[in-house]
């Protein structure tokens, strides 16, 4: 990676972190743990579709680790790492079958994969399989928030995608 690419990825990581930290300050939308907007994922989706998987993975990893430090909750890293990995793989797979103007679809499925990952970890950590009853309601929230972040990412790519790729 050249210096320009490195600087660009660093800026994108900083943007993702900024969004993440601001979202931390927002009041919880629902009393259900695990339901959040996940606005920082806009950056992940944008990076995946404009820069490719390697840059997207780097940005996501840095954001997850630094974000957990900022939130002061290392347990959250475990949850978000599991969710993040599944979501990332979903993006990677869908990228091949989606047209440029359909990238918001990938975001929806990535959000659902993220929720699945969270529930899997929660069930493993607390040794409580019955936690899976939360999955449907998390999926509902995942589809809606995934759609929101996906549309935001779509908008971003159509506006600044060209400049990012340069």
């Amino acid at each position, binding site marked *: 990676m050249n210096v320009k690419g490195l600087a660009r990825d660093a800026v994108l990581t900083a943007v993702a972190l900024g969004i993440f930290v*601001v979202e*931390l300050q*927002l009041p919880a939308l629902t009393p259900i743990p695990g339901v959040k907007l996940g*606005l920082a994922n806009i950056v992940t989706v944008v990076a995946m579709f404009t820069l490719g998987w390697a840059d997207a993975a780097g940005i996501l990893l840095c954001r997850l680790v630094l974000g957990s430090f900022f939130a002061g909750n290392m347990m959250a890293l475990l949850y978000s790492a599991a969710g993040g990995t599944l979501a990332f793989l979903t993006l990677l797979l869908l990228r091949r079958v989606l047209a440029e*103007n359909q990238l918001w679809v990938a975001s929806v499925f990535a959000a659902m994969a993220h929720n699945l990952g969270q529930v899997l970890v929660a069930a493993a950590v607390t040794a409580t399989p019955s936690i899976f009853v939360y999955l449907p309601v998390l999926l509902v929230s995942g589809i809606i928030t995934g759609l*929101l972040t996906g*549309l*935001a990412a*779509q*908008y971003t790519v159509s506006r600044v995608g060209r400049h990012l790729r340069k």
Partner: protein
Amino acid sequence: MRRAAALCALLCLALTACSPAPAKQSSTIFAMDTVMELQLYGDGAVLAESTRLITELEKELSATDPEGGVYAFNHTGTELGKSAAELFLRAMDISRLTGGAMDITVYPVVLAWGFTTGQYRVPGDEEIAALLEKVGYTKASGFDLPQGAMIDLGAVAKGYTSDLIADLWRQRGISSGLMNLGGNVYALGKKPDGSPWLVGVRDPFSDTFLGTVEAEDVAVVTSGAYERYFERDGVIYHHIIDPKTGRPAKSGLASVTVIGPDGTLCDGLSTAFFVLGLDRAAEIWKSCEADGASPDFDVLFVTDGGEIYITEGLEGSFSPTNDYDTGDVRVIRRG
């Protein structure tokens, strides 16, 4: 598509523009021989500060820890720390208000029953009579006690601790929080959604709660025979010792809950009222006019027969669970 995206961006912006609601912070602390749970909405550093405060107070107020402040006072006559001294004087006030039904000098008798160690025994009549010689808040002059007398601030320590933590939280700008110090509850402000905190009152006859009270900037403290007891030869001996008889109090009450802004007072009164029984406790409550100058509190009594009596301030705030009928609840009035 573009319009939808713009709408979404606007929505995100609108959400970020909201003033940040403080996050819920909570912690569990094992101190003063019990479990304490603190939760507040705001800065997590305040919780760490609260934990330090509790640890300091535990040390200063402990009568059982050989390194504790009260232990040193009892055994070597060392001067009490600032908080312990303040609490000593507060306890003396409560003793005067209740005619000695709550008395910190009853400690030698409590020791004889083994309630501090769990090595339970039933002391003989003569032993109790000899120990009672040293008991009595009137025998103290200032901080000077007769030879052989000892104090235990345990009956007011948790209430006092809740007051100090609530003060700390207010100083740090916390406007919503709840603490449960081993059954001594203090509710600071309202819940973040604007409704009052809902505090359950333990049912002395089962392991559930018998009802709830709405709580805002008040302590809710319950004393009951069920908390600590032992059985010998078919007789149950509980831990609330009547300072007059030196034996577990038998007043016809199963539990007493006191609700008011002063946690120390509520803690001490719940013990005193349990010892005094319904009628004498109600007299004291009536004598404290709700004029702002006298102590401000309300009481919920549960008798051995399972009847519930509440003082008039709890009307509307107390709601019994389904196991109890509203008709079973009697209201005590001043008029």
